[in-house]
């Protein structure tokens, strides 16, 4: 029946979705601009529009944005990665410790290797053993945190290498924060890979309908493995950037980031149920969260009040976003 579309839920939702789908597609961008304008007007005298403040928002958001790009892949493939925040903290430490012992290249390698190992473990447990990624990465959250605390007796590890600090986020490059350069590079790469490569297409197919993708010859297990590796590698890059910014590795770095990252991706229009996602949306989602944090801070709200206001704004934005199936 031509007017009985694919699924019962599709059938019921068909009519309203055509009407609302269009504006909902852009709600994140409209919301971003609206919040920006409101803050610009109300916080003008508190230096909101000061270039330094705006760049600061960028610096604070870069790590979330980088992880949100990877999360876009994970969610689009119908999986989730909760371990990223803790893994970022762990990577900041492995990098700092390896650098302390063997120098800069070893430190960078150790950070990336951390991501590779965690990602392969997450991927293997999810695709071969068959534990849902929600549980695999929930467990990995605790393991990464535990390892990080145990290896250092919860102490922070200082980073003294100026070259590392220059490249991984501590410095500016011609007045432009290096962190923002990392963010832009990752965002462009992520966007191209998701939209333009066969890998990206297969990620979306896997999340859209795993069965149909498998019947089409897509190796869905390998796709899931790869998105989970991408996700922990991105988390480790974020951890290394945190470490560069703060000149030290600490287990607390990245704490709670998984929630901001998932919120950023969902705000940006990525579906929690797989099959649809946009990297640009996730970046704007991350920037919006950064914008809100900064604006609430400038308003002089207490930390407790900031938490409440942030929660309300995120709920409103997600309620209006298209990905809430």
């Amino acid at each position, binding site marked *: *029946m031509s*007017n009985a579309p694919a699924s019962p839920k*599709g059938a019921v939702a068909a009519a309203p979705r*055509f009407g609302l789908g269009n504006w909902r597609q852009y709600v994140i961008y409209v919301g971003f601009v609206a919040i920006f304008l409101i803050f610009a007007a109300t916080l003008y005298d508190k230096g909101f529009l000061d270039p330094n403040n705006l760049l600061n928002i960028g610096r604070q958001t870069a790590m979330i944005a980088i992880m949100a790009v990877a999360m876009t892949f994970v969610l689009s493939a119908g999986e989730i990665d909760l371990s990223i925040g803790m893994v970022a903290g762990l990577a900041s430490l492995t990098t700092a410790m390896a650098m302390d012992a063997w120098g800069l290249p070893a430190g960078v390698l150790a950070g990336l290797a951390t991501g590779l190992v965690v990602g392969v473990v997450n991927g293997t447990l999810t695709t071969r053993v068959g534990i849902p990624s929600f549980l695999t990465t929930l467990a990995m959250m605790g393991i990464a945190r535990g390892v990080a605390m145990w290896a250092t007796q919860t102490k922070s590890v200082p980073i003294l290498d100026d070259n590392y600090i220059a490249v991984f986020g501590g410095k500016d490059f011609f007045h432009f924060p290096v962190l923002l350069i990392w963010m832009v590079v990752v965002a462009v790469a992520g966007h191209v890979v998701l939209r333009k*490569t066969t890998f*990206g297409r297969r990620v*979306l197919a896997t999340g859209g309908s795993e069965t149909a993708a498998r019947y089409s*010859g897509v*190796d869905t297990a390998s796709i899931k493995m790869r998105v989970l590796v991408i996700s922990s590698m991105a988390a480790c890059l974020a951890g290394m950037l945190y470490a560069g910014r703060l000149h030290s590795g600490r287990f607390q770095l990245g704490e709670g980031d998984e929630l901001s990252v998932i919120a950023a991706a969902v705000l940006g229009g990525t579906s929690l149920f797989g099959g649809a996602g946009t990297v640009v949306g996730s970046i704007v989602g991350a920037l919006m969260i950064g914008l809100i944090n900064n604006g609430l801070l400038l308003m002089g709200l207490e930390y407790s009040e900031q938490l409440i206001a942030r929660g309300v704004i995120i709920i409103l934005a997600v309620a209006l976003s298209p990905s809430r199936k």
Partner: protein
Amino acid sequence: MNAQPVADDYAVRMAGVSKQFGGVRALDDVSFDVAKGEIHALLGENGAGKSTILKILNGVHAPSAGTIEVLGAPLTEHTPDASRRAGVGMIFQEMSLISTLTVAQNIFLNHEIKTRAGFIDDKSAAARARGLFADLGVDINPSALVGDLSAGQRQLTEIVKAISQKVRVLILDEPTTALSGGEVGKLFAFLRRLKSEGVAIVYVSHRMEEITQIADRATILRDGRHVVTAPLSDLPLETMIEYIVGRRSRGFSDVVRSQVALGKPLLEVRNLCGPAKPDNLNLIVRAGEIVGIAGLLGSGRSAVARVLFGIDPRRSGEILINGAPVQIANPRDAIANGIALIPEDRLRQGVIVEHSVETNASLPIIDRLANAFFVSDTNADAAVDTQIAALRIKTASRDAAVRTLSGGNQQKVVIAKWLLAEPQILILDEPTAGIDIGSKAEIIALVRDLAKSGKAIIVISSELSELLTAADRLLIMVDGRVARDCPRSEFDDPDPSDDEGARLQYAERQLSKVLQQAHAHV
């Protein structure tokens, strides 16, 4: 129902019902009445408005204009809940059961039987369900998980679920798609009993032979308009089809069956065993040949396709392509060896409904269409447009979501997807399930053309007329084994009639007989 029913005999009266979706008029001033104790067939091609009118009756959509009465009371609130309270129950084409609950838990979902203390009483529910199944004469364990049932058993569970809710108007949308011949018989017996108890039944099916067996009256819709309502006795098959399609139909019987010179064996299967089925399967398909696989539900028809395509593991046996043995461990191996599968469950296995026609159709060959790692839209656009034109896929554009297409056109997208992969061996599992009669014939004609172009084709179907029209040779499977392997001509009438329809009907009776006999011998 011989005479026209009188006014208060009506269970449903819909008058002047129209429905507008945006700019599209899905229903235009349609009137539709169903009497108590009547089985009323609702017929029409895909897009004729059947779904829409049923969804209005069922409360999913509100009508743009018109009035609805159920059991004499006007239906003013248009929600599924209001319709259910009025006594309307619908069995969906797509199943609405929860696979992680038991059969009994599903049947009594949302109206659970409770103990005195107010807790759910699963035992009584199971007992009640067992009673309902006994009435229907079906053997389903009420304590089994729905996820473990066969598609046919799920369908029957779905019907029993509706019945358990004191439904006075029962809507069945393609209820037999997943049922075997025996199960259909049981369903019909049950429907006749409901009818004798005064239940009004609206029956939607593309299978004309079922309509002629079960329905008292029929209403035919075309392009959102009411065409005719008449007792079945006034509607011979030819007339019915004429009303439905609005022109002389290209029924199955019209497909030209010219004998093609067969080439060398492309696919050869020796002693193939799957996880449970198939069991010791031997099969040869030559270039240009279509082999049909017939069998009742659970005979392992689809299991053959799944093992050949690398979805189910192969326990033992050999698969040879072009004479050379091949290893097929997963669908990628199958595709690499030139095999394509048009799967049974279009919506779950065939397409990603939320994605576009182009994304779906290009998925198996994105590597071939790509420039290095990058998806090439220009290449994909061209390839997909060629298929849209060649298969005459009706879609707003190649970028439209597959969800927005009709069943027949969705199936054409699946076929397009696999033709783009240029397979030598094409396996079609239930290629026309849930598709209107015009599109069915079109798809079968297409399959025959593909065979003519030198492909080796396997068609698996529960619809005998479809198999007989498509295939050059037929395999009859029982319990995972091949019970018979014979040429299509074996089912021909030795004294053929001039009428193509009659010839097909004869063959269908023969095949049906052979199927039943094969089953009886096990």
